[in-house]
């Protein structure tokens, strides 16, 4: 066995570790937060803020 054989094993192990870390965090997150919070992202928030800001302060673009 040379260095590259060890690197092959290392790559398998590291891949598994990273995959497990993501899977563990994913399950933990899903069980900690409600679906309403996790999927609350809405498109166009910046535009909504700019619009609200303009209305509040009487600024016209």
């Amino acid at each position, binding site marked *: 066995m040379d260095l590259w054989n060890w690197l*092959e094993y290392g790559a398998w192990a590291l*891949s598994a570790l990273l995959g497990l870390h993501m899977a563990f965090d994913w399950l933990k997150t899903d069980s900690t937060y409600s679906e309403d919070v996790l999927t609350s992202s809405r498109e166009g928030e910046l535009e909504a803020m700019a619009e609200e800001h303009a209305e509040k302060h009487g600024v016209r673009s």
Partner: protein
Amino acid sequence: MSDFDITSQTMDGMGPHGTKVGLLRVLGPAHVWALGVGIVLVGEYMGWNFAVGKGGAYAALIACWFAGILYSCVAMIDSEVTSTVASAGGQYTQAKHIVGPLMAFNVGLYLVFAYTMLEAANAITAGYLFSVVATMSGHTGELDQRPFIILVIMFLAWLNYRGVLATLTFNLVITSIAFCAILVLFLSTSGILGESILEHAALFEGHELPYGWIGVLAAMHFGLWYYLGIEGTTQAAEEVRSPARSLPFGTLAGIMTLLIAATLTWFMCSGVLPWEYLGDGVNGSVAPLFDTARLSGSTALVWLLGFGTLFATLASANGCINDASRAWFAMGRDKYLPGWFGAVHPRYRTPYRSIIFLVPIALIFALGAPLDQVITFSILSGLLGYTFMPLNIILFRRKWPLETIKRGYEHPFHPIPAITLLTLCGVTFFAVFLGYGTQLVAMIGFYIVVSLWFHFWRYRFVNRGAQFTMPWPKPRGY
């Protein structure tokens, strides 16, 4: 003074429409540049040289510049629209607002397929690079590339999962090194620093256009490889601090960088490697810039370009994961796909479910499909996306003329770039048809089938009222 702070970690100012957890606005123009150039630069290191095989060195240069015009149009058009429609999903969101839901669904799929296939192709390439390094360092026997292919995908997915700032800062560093490697190789081989090793006249004599003008046309297929993916900058739209400024700046700086890198690459490689060898990317020159460095006789250049090749490959895969996951996330958020995919990680502020979902798909293609097929499906999906762009900008300017919506960037000479882009797309479709007609027909057939599925089944689940979010005036003519 405003009562919200969009840089706050706890309250990001996204209250008005009910967002509790949204993507984080932390990126600047340099990250946008790194995203666009990072995805593409691998095409300079390998792949473009198939164009030489199709029609000779001059044909590859003509394809390089025509594809450069095509992508300059793409960059300008994209910059104008995305500086106005600054949301994750990029061209998908543009299509949704400007053309309609069915177009948006198709464009979203083009994006996901183009980037996921490209990610798989990059992982395959990285596995191959590891095997080359193993052989060069004296490893006997065949290296098992699979663990390295899987590691590349898993590591980059993990990085993307953990946060966009670290992901694109990583891209910025490795892309800059890969680009600087090309500049250093040019300075070292062209005679500016030391003696020139380029022999264009001798190598080109009698081989100017070996297959005539049809070869030039065929070369257009791989001419796209010099720039394929620069349009991916738009996917960062929801995560840049100042979309109207950063997106056009990063995208246009990106296409300028690529035009320089592509021309220098052609100039160096075609001046050192015979066209028959250069044009055979399988049995001949797999990585032309690396081969040029080897022929320079400088060990330092060999190392530099070796790292440049690996970094360019990683940067491309990294950017592809970022972009494919944003497009998938945006479609999930609008319920074009199950809304489950529209989730954002409350701590890392990334579309974590979309990132994880696309990992096994990339692995299946990386481990189970041949490289040339994977690349071809990526190119075809990209090309369908480019064909949409001119129609998109023509409709955008017609429905919302310049005086009705303030743009972050207004592209010049409209509609000339749109018409040029449409024409060049037509030429490239013909070029692709010459070499990969079956795949082209199969791909279009696939999109027709999924369009029918979307129209007759999926559209009933779409958030029809919530999907149009831009505070624009009513479109002209409606």
